[in-house]
């Protein structure tokens, strides 16, 4: 069996004694686009943050390419939720994308010409080259999302962890992002994507985790994405989806 990209065993996370993730066991294979879906408050973002060591589990462990996150962090890029930051921050687009080089550069040293070149390449890749010096407060939702993706490209990682990259963006950006994701997958990268739109699940994801505090179902999308599992994950929260009838 090929080594998995991420291996999670008995992971439990709690905020003030309230479990957010309960006994998660998960193995995410290399080279797939992996979706994580579930209702609001299911712990999707927390799962990603636990993989990244941003939140600390009360039990369990996470292995990235068989090792601790700390040892492999240069092979992982995090794309946070667009709305998790205040975009009224005094910076331009290039500035933010350059932050993608900070992990490589390390403490105190400043990014140089090489890093700047990488940042500009990433901007071009996402069609943001002409916005390099645009103030980030003036960006549309789609442009903000592409800025975050460009920042992650600069890291040249093997694993991408994306939190709701399709939330609140225009159709054109959605197409740009999904084709970029497929391109990255073809290069052998692993993409783990928190997602909320059930309609596009089949189209976008090879593998899928249905989550609601604990894992409801996990595996290839064709096998696990069914009326039954959705019902289990979402409970009575949604109407039966038309595409599944």
């Amino acid at each position: 069996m090929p080594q998995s990209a991420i291996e999670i065993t008995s992971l439990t996370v709690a905020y003030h004694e309230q479990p957010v993730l309960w006994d998660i066991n998960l193995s995410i294979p290399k080279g797939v686009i992996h979706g994580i879906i579930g209702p609001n408050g299911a712990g999707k973002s927390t799962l990603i943050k636990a993989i990244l060591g941003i939140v600390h589990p009360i039990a369990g462990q996470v292995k990235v390419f068989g090792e601790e996150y700390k040892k492999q962090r240069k092979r992982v890029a995090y794309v946070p939720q667009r709305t998790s930051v205040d975009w009224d921050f005094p910076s331009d687009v290039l500035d933010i994308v350059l932050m993608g080089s900070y992990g490589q550069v390390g403490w105190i040293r400043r990014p140089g010409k090489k890093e700047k070149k990488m940042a500009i390449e990433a901007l071009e890749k996402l069609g943001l080259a002409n916005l390099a010096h645009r103030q980030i407060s003036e960006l549309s939702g789609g442009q903000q999302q592409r800025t975050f993706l460009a920042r992650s490209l600069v890291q040249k990682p093997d694993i991408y962890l994306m939190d709701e990259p399709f939330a609140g963006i225009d159709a054109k950006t959605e197409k740009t992002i999904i084709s970029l994701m497929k391109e990255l997958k073809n290069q052998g990268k692993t993409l783990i994507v928190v997602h909320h739109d059930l309609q596009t699940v089949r189209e976008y994801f090879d593998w899928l985790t249905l989550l609601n505090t604990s894992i409801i179902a996990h595996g290839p999308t064709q096998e696990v994405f069914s009326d039954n599992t959705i019902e289990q994950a979402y409970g009575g929260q949604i109407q039966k989806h038309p595409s599944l009838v």
Partner: protein
Amino acid sequence: MIEYLTDVFSNYTLRTVILGTSGLGIVSGALGVFAYLRKQSLVGGVVSHSALPGIVIAFLVTGSKAPSVLVLGAAIAGWLSMLLVNMITRTTRVKYDSALGITLALFFGTGILLLIRVQMAGMSKKAGLEHYLFGMAATMSHENVLVIGGLGGLALILMFVFWKEFKVASFDPDYTKSVGFSVHLIDTIITSLIVVAIVIGLEAVGVILMSAMVIIPAAAARQWTNRLSLMVLISAVIGAAAGVGGTLIGDSGHHLATGPLIVLTATALFILSLFFAPKRGMAIHWIRQWKRKRRMMHRQIPALLHDLMERTKTKDDGWTIDVIRGLSPYKSGIDRVLNHLKSEGLVQQANDLWFLTQKGVEYVGIDSKDHGG
């Protein structure tokens, strides 16, 4: 004017005070930017109030009122207050803002208690500790300026050294953690530098008002620029200007205290920025809005008159301003626009009634073609 300036520069005491107050303005202005961007403006208030017991205890322990000793006491107490805030938010369910309030009350209350105790014991005259409540810039000594320059300079150097880390951690802390930086360490450094920026200003501005100096220049600077480096620079300049301005007004001989004057000067600069800064300023916003509205009315009112004319099929009838106002989406400024249209020959007025002229009819025709009908 020139005479006044030479006067200022030949006056040794005043020169010392200006050096001190402008120095503290630069340091608190520059570092205040990070407090502002991290939405931690209230931290300044807690640190400065919490410094008071540190000052009094430093005096009680050492018996010295040397600025370096008292500033050290203030810094330790200010720093401990931040530690307590962190401890409360981490170990209990008390929210951040409540933790700030609780900590401020605890430290400042203790400080006042100790200060009055010292006063009662008759040690107060010797110490002059009550200056630290409201500030006493006029008595600023050479050593005080050295403390401001030394510690403040060091804080600014560290800000440049950790510039990249401060920037990314202020914008996106979770991401910063994910790429391997200790956000906890960066937070600690930023907080420590803000503590330094505050305690070096306490003698001149006082524990009660000093927090304003880490908020107001930064808030003013934000109005002028969208670049972090420029924001820090402008904030430092505004801080310095407030220091110098407040000192000079205080020196003008009207028995006004310099500390509050520095803070009020900063506030005046903030209000000016809020109104007159390009792009973000309210004045430019209002002017744009008003111009847009006038442009719209300029097109809409002739069109409205034309419409009325078409419906009634007569060129002789005019309409009162009340009818026009009733039909227009704009309720104010209609008379002004009508008079302006009249001066351009597009409308005519007879008694209380307004008509569209032939030129006005053509204008409406052209305008509707221009704008796709």
